[in-house]
């Protein structure tokens, strides 16, 4: 295969442009360091976003150009800012027998930050030392105080809503003013209080005041379709576009990294990539490389960088690359709340969730049969009608004509959804490795996933079930049977399509797999059990499928001991001094805090460390 290698040696080559790669690129560019950024997907522009569009502005209205929605197939997300999915043509992955795992990938500048839920939570002090706390899992090689300054920087830069609450499980940050609570939020907050649970303003990566040339949020509710004013955070328009204006950044789109090339000293000298536009293989030479391709892609790249000197892959003498893969424990339940029926309509859009529930039992583990904890994300309101919005009510009431229409009207906006997002304990049975047989369309060996939830996670979901039911019933809610799949907007899942009436339909893909905002479009409760996955011993517990919450972390973890951790405490490979990892791969645990904020803070710290090491001539 012809290889094109330019003579230029780039100071830093960053692989991947999501939260980690975007942060590294922006921070380095602002420090005057030049960056070559490889992105496996296309470039993106503001005009690619669908914010402010109405469903009738797209011919298929979000059902997919060929109506894929109705056949349980990916719709292509042509009506959201989501790009990619768990199935990408020509880029498969495999799952070991007995495992169940779904791997969502975005191939586009900005990656998943273009559409994600924008939940922005700091890890708590104890989250960095879980093994010390309860003997399970592993401690991070850093403490809260190491990362806190970078959480500060990230919050000042991005803009995060929130309120000062002094809750140990949810460290306060530098917040901008949150939006007022919505009507359903007030019910949730009061119902939680009656159950001894405190609900507070949501912490969302949305600036509600003008910031760095970005106008304040205009509360149109379309965060998941990409923000044309860049008022919410996405790596593309908040970090990479501004960084490009410094003249320090060169973006190479459609560049699928294949392998890291090393010299006899073991240092990375170049990144080999496939130019997807013509299938050719190219190389860029580098002084340092930062992997931010997403946790599993970064692991894959290291494992595929095999040579006689590195038979297990690069930076993998420990054998831990790919190990300790974690996702978030997900479970959702929604209810139709009669108190909301007939309520005077109002514009409830805002910026997604305005309320959330931090973990409230961090000091009461003796009362529980599981370790760690979870937070609750709140959904509801009068969402923009979209395809599938009313499928739940339609299938329940059936019929046709004015009674059907009245039932839809009565139920619109009456649904409240609660989504639990909890901590998974790393285990030996959940990991990814290179599949010995399968290659992608570019000839790159693919990942094979192994996955197993343990009783820790299953018991946590049982606790979510009990808790959510109590809260929803306190407000008079009528529980939709069992609750839906944990994943994001899965509460929209409903029964009724397919070859037989009443057969369960999959989640709609049209809203995008937004991970943080359990919006209930159109306000129907979820139908019972739709889309739930149960693997292993999980048969009776409606836990989310592995990977479904799209919080996969771990796989190239940090640690002080090179024997069992590929990276040191600066996310630098123990064995390869000019190799850094800046996505969620370095995570040692997966606290009940959505990972993006920690990815950004960690990447920021890594970028500063890298720049300083370069200045000193150490790398």
């Amino acid at each position, binding site marked *: 295969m012809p290889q094109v290698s330019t003579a230029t040696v780039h100071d830093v080559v960053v692989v991947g442009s999501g939260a980690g790669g975007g942060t590294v690129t922006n921070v380095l560019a602002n420090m005057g360091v030049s960056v070559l950024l490889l992105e496996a997907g296309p470039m993106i522009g*503001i*005009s690619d976003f669908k*914010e*402010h*569009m*109405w*469903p*009738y502005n*797209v*011919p*298929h*209205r*979000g059902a997919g*150009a*060929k*109506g894929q929605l*109705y*056949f349980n197939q990916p719709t292509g997300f042509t009506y959201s800012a989501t790009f990619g999915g768990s199935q990408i043509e020509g880029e498969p992955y495999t799952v070991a027998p007995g495992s169940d795992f779904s791997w969502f990938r975005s191939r586009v500048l900005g990656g998943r930050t273009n559409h994600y839920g924008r939940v922005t939570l700091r890890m708590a002090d104890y989250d960095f030392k879980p093994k010390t706390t309860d003997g399970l899992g592993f401690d991070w090689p850093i403490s809260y105080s190491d990362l806190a300054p970078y959480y500060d920087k990230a919050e000042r830069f991005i803009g995060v809503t929130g309120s000062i609450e002094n809750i140990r499980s949810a460290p306060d940050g530098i917040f901008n003013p949150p*939006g*007022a609570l919505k009507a*359903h939020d*007030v*019910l949730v907050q009061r*119902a939680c209080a*009656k159950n001894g649970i405190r609900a507070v303003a949501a912490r969302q990566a949305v600036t509600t005041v*003008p910031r760095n040339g970005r*106008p*304040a949020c*205009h*509360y149109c509710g379309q965060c998941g379709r990409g923000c*044309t*004013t860049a008022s919410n955070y996405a790596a593309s328009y908040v970090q990479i576009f501004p960084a490009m204006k410094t003249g320090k950044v060169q973006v190479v789109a459609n560049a699928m990294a294949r392998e890291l090339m090393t010299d006899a000293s073991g240092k990375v000298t170049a990144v080999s990539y496939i130019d997807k536009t013509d299938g050719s293989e190219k190389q860029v030479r580098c002084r340092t490389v930062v992997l931010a391709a997403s946790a599993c892609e970064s692991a894959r790249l290291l494992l595929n960088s095999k040579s006689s000197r590195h038979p297990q892959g690069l930076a993998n003498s420990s054998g831990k690359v790919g190990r300790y893969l974690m996702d978030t424990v997900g479970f959702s339940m929604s209810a139709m*709340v009669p*108190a909301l029926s*007939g*309520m*005077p*309509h*109002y*514009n409830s*859009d*805002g910026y997604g969730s305005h309320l959330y529930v931090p973990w409230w039992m961090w000091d009461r583990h003796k009362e529980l049969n599981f370790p760690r904890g979870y937070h609750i994300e709140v959904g509801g309101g*009068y969402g923009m*009608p979209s*395809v599938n919005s*009313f*499928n739940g009510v339609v*299938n329940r009431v*059936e019929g*046709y*004509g004015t009674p*059907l*229409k009245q039932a*839809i*009207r009565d139920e619109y906006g009456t649904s409240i959804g609660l989504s639990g997002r909890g901590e998974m304990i790393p285990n030996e049975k959940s990991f990814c490795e290179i599949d010995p047989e399968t290659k992608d369309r570019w000839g790159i060996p693919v990942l094979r996933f192994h996955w197993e939830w343990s009783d820790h996670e299953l018991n946590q979901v049982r606790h979510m079930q009990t808790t959510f039911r109590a809260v929803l019933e*306190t*407000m008079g809610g009528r529980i939709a049977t069992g609750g839906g799949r944990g994943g994001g907007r899965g509460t929209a899942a409903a029964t009724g*399509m397919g070859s*037989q*009436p009443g057969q369960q339909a999959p989640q709609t893909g049209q809203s995008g797999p937004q991970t943080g905002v359990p919006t209930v479009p159109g306000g129907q409760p979820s139908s019972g059990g739709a889309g739930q996955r149960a693997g292993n011993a999980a048969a009776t517990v409606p836990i989310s499928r592995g990977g479904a919450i799209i919080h996969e972390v771990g796989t190239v973890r940090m640690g002080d001991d090179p024997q069992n951790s590929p990276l040191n405490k600066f996310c630098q490979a123990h064995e390869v001094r000019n190799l850094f990892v800046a996505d969620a791969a370095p995570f040692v645990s997966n606290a009940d805090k959505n990972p993006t904020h920690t990815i950004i803070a960690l990447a920021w710290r890594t970028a500063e460390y890298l720049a300083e090491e370069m200045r000193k001539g150490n790398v």
Partner: protein
Amino acid sequence: MSEITRRDVLRRLGATLMATGVLDRVSAQEVHHLALAQSGTNGAYTPKALSDQEYKTLVRLTDLIIPVENSKPGAVAAGAAAWIDMLASENSQLKDIYTKGLAWIDAEMKRRASSVFVSATPEQQTGLLDLIAYRRNSTPELDPGIVFFTWVRRMTVDAFYTSEIGIADIDYRGNRPQAAYAEPTEAIAYALKRSGL
């Protein structure tokens, strides 16, 4: 992009956004969106997937599913059948479901009333729908009709409530820029009173 459209955009955005200095960035995008919005769903539509007869039957079914209500327009005005036909023209599996389903409807109506569906009386039409609109009426004979009606009903509801008419009908008030997120005091008072919280 015409100046008129651009002015529409500026008017829509309003003074609140001007104050924030965001207008230039937003307006270009709004123009882009408005241009896409010009393709209306009203007016004559020539079916692409279905025959004229099939299409007429589909239009009548959508009319029965989301009818005109107190002179408020329904699925016909919202172009539901056109949208379904458009998708069916892009998907042979969907087209097959509709051609076979509509054939079943006509055959069943002929068996019952010696007439195709569109020529039957409204009472005869609703008489058939009263059977196939409910899973509880499942029999081997009726099941093809029940399955098909589930498809038509779901897609008609989707088409209607994603149309301009349907969005107005359901009284969705969002998807527009606001200067601030106002506390919905009236709604909160209503919900609290009714919930007893």
